[in-house]
């Protein structure tokens, strides 16, 4: 019981810390926090078999996700850890992982049973080590992505970016390119007038409505993903959809920075279910008259379809949208996804 309440406390604390921070923390720090949280949970719960582990992971992740609908990272991390556990089990047993091609008919019942009842004790240490590795990988993903900027951005490029202020990944991506001696111009699409003043030196800030007139002179567009899905579509911060449409019209390549922990193994058919609307945008002096009559929408995300994205820049490499489905196999186990 103690461990249960402990776990509940941990979870509650985690959720509160997420909600307390405004503006939102960077995704990588949320990912790391989730990793730590799950590690602690596993430590406290001490599941004996694989099946137990999976059950506990799914239930915790589902509940966490239900309280923070827009944070898909939580589920991702949970599933990744589950895959790590499976890998460990397989390794211990010395078996090869069944090839994806044969996985449909190779896994007979017996293998499944054995897998489920595999003893956790043996692999616990290794699992902990893998989880630590996972968090290191998350930490280093930003630098890995930044290092790819030299391959994507060239001299005399005019790069249009969005949400430079809110994304550290984007920032490091561009500064890395600038440091390596690339001479390119950066146009940043900013949200409000105030951000126009605080933009870093190497960018020219413009507002969202000016994008259409600057697109013909742009040679590359770089966006940050909030999440990306196996079909190659992705969620980007609001406003990204128009930028991508305009880029397509002018045949400008769109690169989406997408570290691996944002890869969601599930399709998201309806972004509205993410409950990601923000505050009111009407000016205050209109509030008296407009109360009850005006519905202000301020979405946080836009859904980009896969044909609008040229490349996903992940920490390992750049991938084309159609390859994302294959890539998810690296991080998630299909059984987990099926059972979710």
């Amino acid at each position, binding site marked *: 019981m103690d461990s249960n309440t402990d776990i509940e406390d941990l979870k509650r604390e985690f959720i509160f810390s997420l909600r307390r921070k405004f503006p939102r923390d960077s995704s990588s720090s949320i990912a790391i926090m989730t990793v730590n949280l799950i590690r602690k949970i596993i430590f406290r719960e001490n599941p004996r078999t694989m099946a137990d582990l999976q059950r506990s992971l799914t239930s915790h992740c589902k509940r966490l996700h239900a309280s923070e609908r827009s944070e898909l990272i939580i589920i991702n991390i949970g599933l990744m850890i589950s895959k790590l556990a499976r890998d460990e089990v397989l390794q211990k047993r010395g078996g090869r992982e069944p090839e994806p091609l044969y996985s449909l008919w190779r896994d007979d019942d017996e293998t499944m049973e054995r897998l489920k009842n595999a003893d956790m004790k043996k692999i616990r240490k290794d699992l902990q080590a893998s989880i630590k590795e996972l968090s290191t990988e998350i930490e280093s993903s930003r630098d890995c992505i930044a290092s790819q900027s030299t391959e994507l951005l060239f001299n005399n490029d005019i790069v249009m970016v969005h949400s430079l202020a809110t994304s550290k990944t984007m920032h490091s991506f561009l500064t890395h390119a600038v440091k390596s001696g690339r001479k390119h111009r950066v146009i940043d699409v900013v*949200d*409000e*007038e105030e951000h126009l003043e605080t933009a870093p030196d190497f960018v020219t800030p413009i*507002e*969202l*409505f*000016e*994008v*259409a*007139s600057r697109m*013909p002179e742009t040679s590359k567009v770089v966006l940050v993903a909030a999440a990306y899905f196996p079909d190659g579509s992705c969620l980007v911060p*609001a*406003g990204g*959809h*128009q930028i991508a*449409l*305009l880029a397509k*019209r002018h045949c400008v390549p769109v690169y989406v920075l997408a570290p691996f922990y944002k890869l969601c193994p599930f399709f998201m058919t309806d972004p509205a279910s993410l409950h990601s609307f923000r505050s009111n*945008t*009407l*000016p205050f002096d*209109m509030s008296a*008259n*407009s109360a*009850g*009559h*005006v*519905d*202000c*929408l*301020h*979405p946080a995300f*836009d859904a980009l379809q896969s044909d609008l994205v040229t490349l996903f820049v992940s920490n390992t490499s750049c991938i084309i949208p159609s390859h994302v489905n294959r890539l998810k196999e690296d991080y998630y186990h299909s059984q987990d996804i099926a059972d979710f």
Partner: protein
Amino acid sequence: MSGNPNITEKKHPADKIKETFEKLKDELKNLGMILGVNNESTTQPPAASTHSEESTKPDDKNPYHKDVTADDKKARKAAKAAEKKARAEKSVANKAAAAAGNTQQPQKKPEQVGKNQEKPKQEPKKVASENAEKLIEENRQLTKTTEQLAAQMESLVVVEETKTNGDLKSAIKKTTGVEKNVRHVHNVIMPSAVTFDLPKNQVKIVASDSDEGVASEIESTAISQLDDATCLAHIHPAFLTLLAQSELEKIPDVETVCIKFIEAFKEFLRDWTAEREKNQTDASTFGHDLDLAIRPQLAHLTQNGHWPLPFALGNTVRLLKRTIKRVDDQTNAECGETLQNYLEDTLSINFSSAYKAISQLLVRKIRQFKKVVVFDWCPVVNHVLLDAREQIEDMQLTVIDANSSGRGTRHVKSFVDRGYSVKYVTMKGASWASRDGAVLILGCSAIFANGAVAAQKGALASVLTANHYNIPVIVVAEHFKFIDKVCLFRLKLFNELKRKRRLVDLICSMI
């Protein structure tokens, strides 16, 4: 921009130009003598070009200097006429010098030479008001001569145009208007002695009446006017107010600009007609004189063509000029009456009745669409929406605004004031709004001949998202917004009287 061809042209037949300048110097000296001016006014030909045009806006502006006496006005008119004649003189010299070949070169140069030399002459001319009356009479005589010559010119236009059709450059540059005009004069043989002649390049009798735009017509007069310290004195205060308002970005849309312009013009007309009555000038030249009088006003509005009028306003101005030229009444008062009536009609046809007609047509169409999306402010769209909301009970409106607390809030306000509910999104949510909506209604600034639409910034993005979700886009426009031009490149369509940052998007008709 117009400077560069001059610089390159300078290099070619330098000798020819030198000859031309010699001739010019002589003829201008003569002019000066006739006007009783000392020889200092004949300066050397300037090194370069359009700097003279752009340079000297005087520091001390007298925006509301209303004490313009009749005499002063006459003197100024005479001065203008004299300058034009001087220019005609130069063009004569040009013809003589460069009869055979490249038509473009000497014309710009001597024009500018003339402009520079006219500036110092302006002051002494204004003083010489005694000569004014003489000049006016000579003016009249020469109008007749010009009309004869105009007939000759028309026949020569054909010749000219076949020559210039091969020259691609001139089709694109804005300055071709002036060059063309001067070129027409090119082949006409003028009487050799120094005579004051009405400037052919100002009288647009030739076929190319419409399409060069207001700016290019006025360019030659404007330059000579605005160098003076009291240059703003002859600009009517109504226009000055209009200009000031637009600089302060107090005017939200093209329709308001047009309405204000028409009202300013009405004021100007009233004052001008009254003055004419006082001077008891002949009503037969009413149209012509008004045309001349309005040019510096318009030039000031467009800042010598630097900020061309909005397309729709250009249309209105053109129609207005046409009506002015056709005015033919007995007395000054009647002429004034006619024009005032015309202006009233324009206002009502183009604005109030137009809105009603448009909304009648449109409400039928959008009846089937329950969810309407609009982008940014346009008074026509607002009118339509309000009408539609009254007739269609369950219509839901979403307003996309270019930036937060932008002009889209006017739509919101108008709806909320009547107690209707409305959804509001900024540009970030344009995608969401389109996904949710059934039709997008846009206002515009102008519709070009190839079907392209010039609309507010951000309209293109909204239209693309609408396209993406397969919802129809309807553009509403009054008929004066249809322009006979084609805009292929989407560069900086500066929305003119709104200067600063209200640039305009070009939506190609392919959408």
